[in-house]
């Protein structure tokens, strides 16, 4: 798969995608970060410390659960869930936050900046900062603060300074802008970016820290079933949980990799966040990838019921996997995600995050078309406790 394209991931190039489009003020800081990351990448002491904390703090390895009743209800492929919802702080975001937090500590950084959409990355970062004794500033769009109130309070309990962002659509992209502005103003701080996007080395580094999902899942599914899955499904916002579970399977060519973007209210400008369905090549927030934008190159507003998928660009490695046709990308609408959410609650006793519910929605579509011997592995990237207010609101339930 990798032999016929220019893949130079050590320099942040994924075919025609990736790169490092940053203001000059950040270049020195980002070069320092890149060097430090490549050092810890092969440093056994660092890796041992991270593994220890994953065992004793994150709660890794996370379980692989056979979704028996969901499988029966859909009447086709066996559905297995990789349970990132069972991690400390409730989503895969902790894998990256802990890795980068340890790196920041190694680099002697005292102050951590982060952006957050759904609040899961913010909560994970706030927890890691509390654990490691670091100062934590989290930028969050005020629209997202409104729909993710429990996570705002969680972050504050964990000692983070949560700063509302009132520009643009007041969602994730605006929080990233503000975090970058903070970093430009405070280049000695550490910017703990939460997804596999932004300038090099973030897409590579975030993938590295999230790949533990796929490494564990590969061993677990082989141990449980004796074979590789036919299909792996993950939701894609920036794309960190998806790249984390996909990457260890990239060379298993029989495995169908499927990313699910947010279809929102449908594929019309401003009403969704499906970059592959409605976007085109662009440069945004430090990287070259598929971007939702108007004809003048202004970045489009997006919509999704899930704050974590509500973003105008997709990580550059996904753009590359898409163009190479190694992975396939589809979308689920708000309504389909909500149905997936309720179905998993009812059949498995698991409340999934609305983000992860998009992956469930694709499994719901796909499983009945596959044989009963087939295996679908769904990355259940987070739990849905944070979403119960949004869901109640949509269902017209007074809490």
């Amino acid at each position, binding site marked *: 798969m990798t032999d016929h394209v220019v893949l130079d991931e050590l320099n942040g190039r994924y075919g025609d995608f990736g790169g*490092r*489009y940053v*203001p000059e*003020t950040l270049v020195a800081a980002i070069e320092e970060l890149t060097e430090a990351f490549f050092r810890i990448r092969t440093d056994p002491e660092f890796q041992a410390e991270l593994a220890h904390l994953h065992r004793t703090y994150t709660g890794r390895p996370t379980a692989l659960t056979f979704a028996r009743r969901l499988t029966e209800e859909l009447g086709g492929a066996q559905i297995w869930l990789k349970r990132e919802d069972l991690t400390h702080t409730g989503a895969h975001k902790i894998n990256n936050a802990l890795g980068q937090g340890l790196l920041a500590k190694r680099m002697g950084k005292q102050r951590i900046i982060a952006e957050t959409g759904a609040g899961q990355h913010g909560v994970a970062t706030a927890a890691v900062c509390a654990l490691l004794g670091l100062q934590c500033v989290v930028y969050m769009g005020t629209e997202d603060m409104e729909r993710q109130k429990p996570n705002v309070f969680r972050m504050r309990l964990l000692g983070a300074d949560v700063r509302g962002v009132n520009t643009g659509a007041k969602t994730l992209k605006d929080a990233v802008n503000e975090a970058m502005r903070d970093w430009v103003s405070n280049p000695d701080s550490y910017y703990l970016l939460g997804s596999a996007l932004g300038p090099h080395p973030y897409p590579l580094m975030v993938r590295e820290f999230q790949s533990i999902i796929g490494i564990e899942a590969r061993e677990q599914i082989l141990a449980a079933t004796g074979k590789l899955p036919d299909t792996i499904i993950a939701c894609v916002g920036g794309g960190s949980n998806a790249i984390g579970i996909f990457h260890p399977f990239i060379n298993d060519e029989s495995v169908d990799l499927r990313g699910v973007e947010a279809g929102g209210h449908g594929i019309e400008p401003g009403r969704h966040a499906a970059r592959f369905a409605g976007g085109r090549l662009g440069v945004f927030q430090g990287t070259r990838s598929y971007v939702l934008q108007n004809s003048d*190159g202004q970045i489009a507003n997006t919509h999704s019921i899930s704050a974590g998928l509500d973003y105008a660009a997709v990580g550059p490695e996904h753009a590359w996997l898409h163009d190479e046709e190694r992975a396939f990308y589809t979308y689920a609408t708000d309504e389909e995600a909500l149905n997936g959410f309720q179905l998993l609650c009812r059949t498995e006793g698991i409340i999934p995050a609305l983000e992860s519910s998009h992956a469930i929605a694709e499994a719901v579509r796909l499983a009945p078309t596959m044989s009963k011997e087939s295996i679908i592995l769904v990355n259940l990237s987070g739990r849905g406790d944070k979403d119960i207010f949004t869901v109640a609101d949509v269902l017209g339930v007074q809490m």
Partner: protein
Amino acid sequence: MSRIAQTFERLASQGRTALMPFLTIGYPERDSALSLAQALVAGGADMLELGMPFSDPLADGATIQRTTDIALANGVDLEFCLETVRQLRAAGLSIPLLLMGYFNPMFQYGVERFVAAAKAAGADGFIVPDLPPEEAQEFHAATKAHELDLVFLLAPTSTDARIAKVAGLSSGFIYCVALRGVTGARAALADDLGDFLARVRQHSQLPRAVGFGISKPEHVASVATMAEGAICASALLDYIGSLPNDQQAAGAQQFVQKLRDAADQANGYHQ
């Protein structure tokens, strides 16, 4: 020699520092740049930086974010920016005009096509804050082919090795970022500005223009003793925005005149 290089050379022979105010095209009204540019020239501007609005200006502070939002609401796109340059030239404006913008709109337009169109419209150079030299090969080649300047930025955080590299690629001048931060008016200049400008001089003989936070005559006077150019953006836009429409051109002229006087006085220049 480019019009920008000629301007710096002429000013250097007079012992003067170049004054480069900034306007956001389409702010406060869609057509404001036409009258405001003339006023800035009348006030003593040597060159103009014309901002092309972008939805997500991540190197910019609150003022430029606000002015670009208004410009976008006024329907400004790249074609309109090029048309503004054309009209300024048609109206007889002869000083260097630099287009400042974030990369994506120009990338969508097509880099080579945009540079050619800007040249035809009468622009002299480009400043693209999110396009470091490593990502600028195509832009660099296009500006070279059309004999326009591509101005790169350096910052106090830039290492000496990086200064040497970027200085070798920049043309026209080097945009020296005065502080660690985003654009926006500031009370005072950074203490290490002089050291930074001296480090840049060690690696390049190109003119150094200082921007970010240059807000008042005292700042310009101070920059005039250390560098070859001073750029003033947010403070000017804040002032223009504070005035009623019919007073904006006169106000902008006075604002720049004060900066001009401060620079000339610091340079010991008398007309």
